[in-house]
């Protein structure tokens, strides 16, 4: 109570800047005069009486200091004084302060921005309640090396009823769907799921209801749930949307509910978020009858029963897969070794981007480390430059603690200002990154700078300050007072520490540069990679033919109806002025392929343990001409390759090489899928490999099929999305309305979307690599810059310290070349050690990057030679400046200075 009151009094005095000095002076004066009078009364002469009084009063300064300390709050006063002093110092050497603050800001800004992405994508738990019991279920045939294969309805029922480890299991299938009835047909991202999908994810509606048991049906239930985004954009957020009927792929559906804004389908958003959810039992049209061997379902999600661990569930599923294989040997060929695997949902979703994010994290860690080393070096250099000042301070009575505190204040001030600047920078960097990050990275919409990241950044800035502040402070707080005051040079200890810091900084920078070099080289190789066709002057546009569940609503039910549409559209597109030639393809090159099928080859006995698989690509006549993809043998598809005529196929060079290595594939017959009813197709041509699945995917066999012939590899699998490709000199924007008009004039309900050039499609397929390569490359450049600043700073400091010695040497006859050599030598030795250490470190860690490289070995000799050479050149340039300056030392001046 009393001490609180005392504190408050002192605080008031402090705040009001109340000074006790006048009062003390007055009291002291009174005291002294009273004592003097008493002394005179005791018989002393007046002068002596005054002298004795002063003696008896004691050391005035010490008392005033005590009094002053009691008056206010000395701790805070000192702090403010230190802060003022630090600010004055920084304003006197703004270069140092700016470099240090900029470096801290860069370190913190980069960490925060990248950490925000990593946090949202990798670390933060999924936005579903109890995400730990959510799993993704995979069906694999490890014997034939096919993984994540599709599954059938009876297999789904086994998971639900027989496995006993799941509370719920749900299927989901993603696709796009045409929404008609508005001003313009729209193409929406859709998910078809089991009725228990939302209850499995524990989602709640924003308005209306979600699917539940009343929606259980064999086929599609006539109800639909829409996203918050679609509700606001297309239905203006109108709550009366509930009960309204919309047409999706011509089928009527009733809107029963709207999801809240935060809900997302657990999957990768390839370009757009899912906007409509349908529900189906997947057991009636358009799906095939549910037999065990009819595997058309793509994705399964499960929620484990409470108390069941992942390992227990996996054991049970492995056992169940074994039972099923024995019970239904016909449906599970023994060579496939069919099995079921579960993975935590989060891991399954993030899987592919993990290596990239880890490399980015590693790069950031290295940059932060380099920044830290650089700042430590800077502060250390300043500390040794200020030994004289510290010596004077201790000589004047400053305690060691006081000096340490002042140095700490300075470095903390630096890191706070740097931290604040870094957070501002992070905000900008994050915005930039979100523009650069390919949209295929999952959960990007959840990326924001959140408070954990902010806290982490602040903590980082604080720790930086403490760490770097402490080392120089302790180093400088035990100076040899006499030596320091006289200005003699300190011992070698500090210099050796700084050498070590610079060497490790150089090594880190080399590691980063080699990593960046490997990624950039990969990117360059990929850009130069021949895609197998000529992408320039090709405009692509996507069209989606509806696929209603009700066959009577399907205007494209038969292959004849489809053929009529394709022919008419091709005729009209070829008539567009400026279009040289137009063709259609089911999936554009480099965008990947959703399906692959077993390949049956006539007359070839199937060997056990080997399953031939190919990806089908459905194309129209002239496709290879539009793409300028060279036909190696045989012929291309013709207008006559239609239903009713001989089923034909064209294979790519990879397929031809793999299956007919020493024979002519022309005239051979192949069959897609395991359905015995699937037709045999005669190979009529061989085309050069086209990078169908991405520039960095090689050697996947493809079979091209005429768009006029029925695709019957598997029941339930139809191709109704397609892209038009036109060879034209017109830009995509000019062509877009013309294509739209031609499509609408045939069928006004068909949306046209993703109108773009083929070059942009190629670029888009490299977006993820481009992003990581540029980011790491940028970091590498930054590291190079920081490392050269580091070595420059060290040598400049050495030159400053040794200017007297240099002057002496010159006075004794050393030439400028000798001096240049003397200083350069140190720079070269340090750089050499750093580069060698960095190369060794890179060589031993580069294999971690292997999955991100394409066509470049992790220990690519070119990168491992060029980077150190470049590094050497830059480091020597950085050393040359202080060395050159050393030669300008005026011996007379340098000697007189001391």
């Amino acid at each position, binding site marked *: 109570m009393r001490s609180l009151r005392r504190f408050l009094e002192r605080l008031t005095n402090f705040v009001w800047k109340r000074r006790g000095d006048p009062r003390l002076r007055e*009291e002291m004066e009174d005291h002294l005069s009273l004592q003097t009078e008493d002394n005179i009364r005791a018989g002393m002469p007046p002068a002596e009486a005054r002298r004795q009084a002063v003696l*008896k009063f004691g050391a005035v300064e010490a*008392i005033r200091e005590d009094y002053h300390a009691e008056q206010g709050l000395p701790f805070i006063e000192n702090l403010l004084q230190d802060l003022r002093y630090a600010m004055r110092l920084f304003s006197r050497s703004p270069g140092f302060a700016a470099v240090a603050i900029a470096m801290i800001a860069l370190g913190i800004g980069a960490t925060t921005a990248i950490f925000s992405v990593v946090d949202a994508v990798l670390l933060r738990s999924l936005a579903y309640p109890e995400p730990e019991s959510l799993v993704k279920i995979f069906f694999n045939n490890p014997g034939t090396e096919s993984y994540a294969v599709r599954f059938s309805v009876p297999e789904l029922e086994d998971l639900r009823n027989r496995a006993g480890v799941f509370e719920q299991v749900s299927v989901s299938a993603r696709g796009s769907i045409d929404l008609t009835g508005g001003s313009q047909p729209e193409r929406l991202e859709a998910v078809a799921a089991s009725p228990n999908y939302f209850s499995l994810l524990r989602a709640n509606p924003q308005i209306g209801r979600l699917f539940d048991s009343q929606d259980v049906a064999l086929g599609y239930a006539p109800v639909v749930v829409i996203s918050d985004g679609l509700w606001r954009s297309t239905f203006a957020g109108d709550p009366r949307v509930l009960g309204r009927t919309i047409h999706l792929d011509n089928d009527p559906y009733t809107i029963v509910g709207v999801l809240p804004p935060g809900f997302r389908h657990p999957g990768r958003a390839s370009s757009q978020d899912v906007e409509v959810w349908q529900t189906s039992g997947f057991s009636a049209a358009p799906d095939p009858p549910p037999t065990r061997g009819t595997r058309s379902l793509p994705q399964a999600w499960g929620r484990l029963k409470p108390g069941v661990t992942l390992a227990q569930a996996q054991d049970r599923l492995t056992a169940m897969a074994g039972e099923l294989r024995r019970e239904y040997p016909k449906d599970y060929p023994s060579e496939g070794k069919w099995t079921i695997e579960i993975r935590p949902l989060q891991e399954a979703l993030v899987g592919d981007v993990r290596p990239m994010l880890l490399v980015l994290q590693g790069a950031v860690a290295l940059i932060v480390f380099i920044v830290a080393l650089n700042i430590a070096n800077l502060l250390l250099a300043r500390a040794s430059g200020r030994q004289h000042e510290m010596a004077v301070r201790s000589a004047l009575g400053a305690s060691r603690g006081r000096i340490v505190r002042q140095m700490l204040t300075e470095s903390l001030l630096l890191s706070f200002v740097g931290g604040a600047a870094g957070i501002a920078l992070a905000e900008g960097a994050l915005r930039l990154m979100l523009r650069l990050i390919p949209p295929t990275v999952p959960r990007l919409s959840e990326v924001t700078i959140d408070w954990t990241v902010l806290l982490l950044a602040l903590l980082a800035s604080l720790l930086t300050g403490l760490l770097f502040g402490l080392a120089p402070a302790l180093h400088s707080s035990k100076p040899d007072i006499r030596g320091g005051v006289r200005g003699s040079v300190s011992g070698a200890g500090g210099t050796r520490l700084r050498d070590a810091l610079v060497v490790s900084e150089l090594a880190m920078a080399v590691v980063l540069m080699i990593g960046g070099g490997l990624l950039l080289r990969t990117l360059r190789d990929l850009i130069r990679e021949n895609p197998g066709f000529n992408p320039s002057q090709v405009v692509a546009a996507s069209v989606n033919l509806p696929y209603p569940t009700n066959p009577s609503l399907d205007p494209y039910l038969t292959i004849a109806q489809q053929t009529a549409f394709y022919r008419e559209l091709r005729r009209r597109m070829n008539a567009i002025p400026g279009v040289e030639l137009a063709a259609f393809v089911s999936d554009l090159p480099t965008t990947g392929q959703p399906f692959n099928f077993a390949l049956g080859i006539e007359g070839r006995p199937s060997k056990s343990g080997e399953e031939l698989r190919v990806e089908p690509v459905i194309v129209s006549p002239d496709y290879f001409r539009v793409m300028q993809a060279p036909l190696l043998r045989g012929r291309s598809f013709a207008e006559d390759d239609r239903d009713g005529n001989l089923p034909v196929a064209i294979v790519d060079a990879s397929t031809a090489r793999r299956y007919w290595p020493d024979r002519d594939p022309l005239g051979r017959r192949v069959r897609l899928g395991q359905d015995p009813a699937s037709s045999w197709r005669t190979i009529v041509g061989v085309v050069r490999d086209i990078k169908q699945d991405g520039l960095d995917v090689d050697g996947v066999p493809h079979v091209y099929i005429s768009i006029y012939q029925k695709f019957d590899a598997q029941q339930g699998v139809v191709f109704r999305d397609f892209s038009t490709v036109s060879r034209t000199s017109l830009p995509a924007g000019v062509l877009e309305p013309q294509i739209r008009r031609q499509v609408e004039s045939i069928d006004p309900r068909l949306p046209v979307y993703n109108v773009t050039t083929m070059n942009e499609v190629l670029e888009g397929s490299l977006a993820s690599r481009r992003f990581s390569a540029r980011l790491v490359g940028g970091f590498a450049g930054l590291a190079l810059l920081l490392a050269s600043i580091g070595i420059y700073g060290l040598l400049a400091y050495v030159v400053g310290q040794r200017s007297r010695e240099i002057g002496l040497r010159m006075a004794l006859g050393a030439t400028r070349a000798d001096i240049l050599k003397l200083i350069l030598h140190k720079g070269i030795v340090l750089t050499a050690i750093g580069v060698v250490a960095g190369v060794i470190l890179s060589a031993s860690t580069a294999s971690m990057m292997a999955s991100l490289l394409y066509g470049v070995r992790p220990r690519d000799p070119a990168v491992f030679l060029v980077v150190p050479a470049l590094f050497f050149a830059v480091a020597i340039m950085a050393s040359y400046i202080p060395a050159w300056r050393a030669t300008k030392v005026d011996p007379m001046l340098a000697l007189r200075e001391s």
Partner: protein
Amino acid sequence: MKKRTEVQQGTLGLMVLKTLDVLGPLHGYGMARRIEQISKDLLAVNQGTLYPVLLKLEHEGSITSEWGASENNRRARFYRLTRAGLKQMQAETHDWEQTAAIIARFFEVRAEDLT
């Protein structure tokens, strides 16, 4: 070194309170003289150390001060005990007496008393 000053400062504070309690309002010099007289050598030198102690006691609310006229009609700052100060002095006096009594008993103890 430091420890001894602290003990002295503590005791000095209590002496100030006791002096004011016995003699009523006093100025700094008067207090210093009384304390010197009674304690003999404490405050024979370094009388000035009294003033930071007075400020501290005032901050704690144990004493108050105001300007007044001294015996020879000079302006001087007079210190007066507050009620909180009185209570504090009584409590501290009690503590001191207790401590002193305990220490005294230990000093009286001889080896044979403990067998």
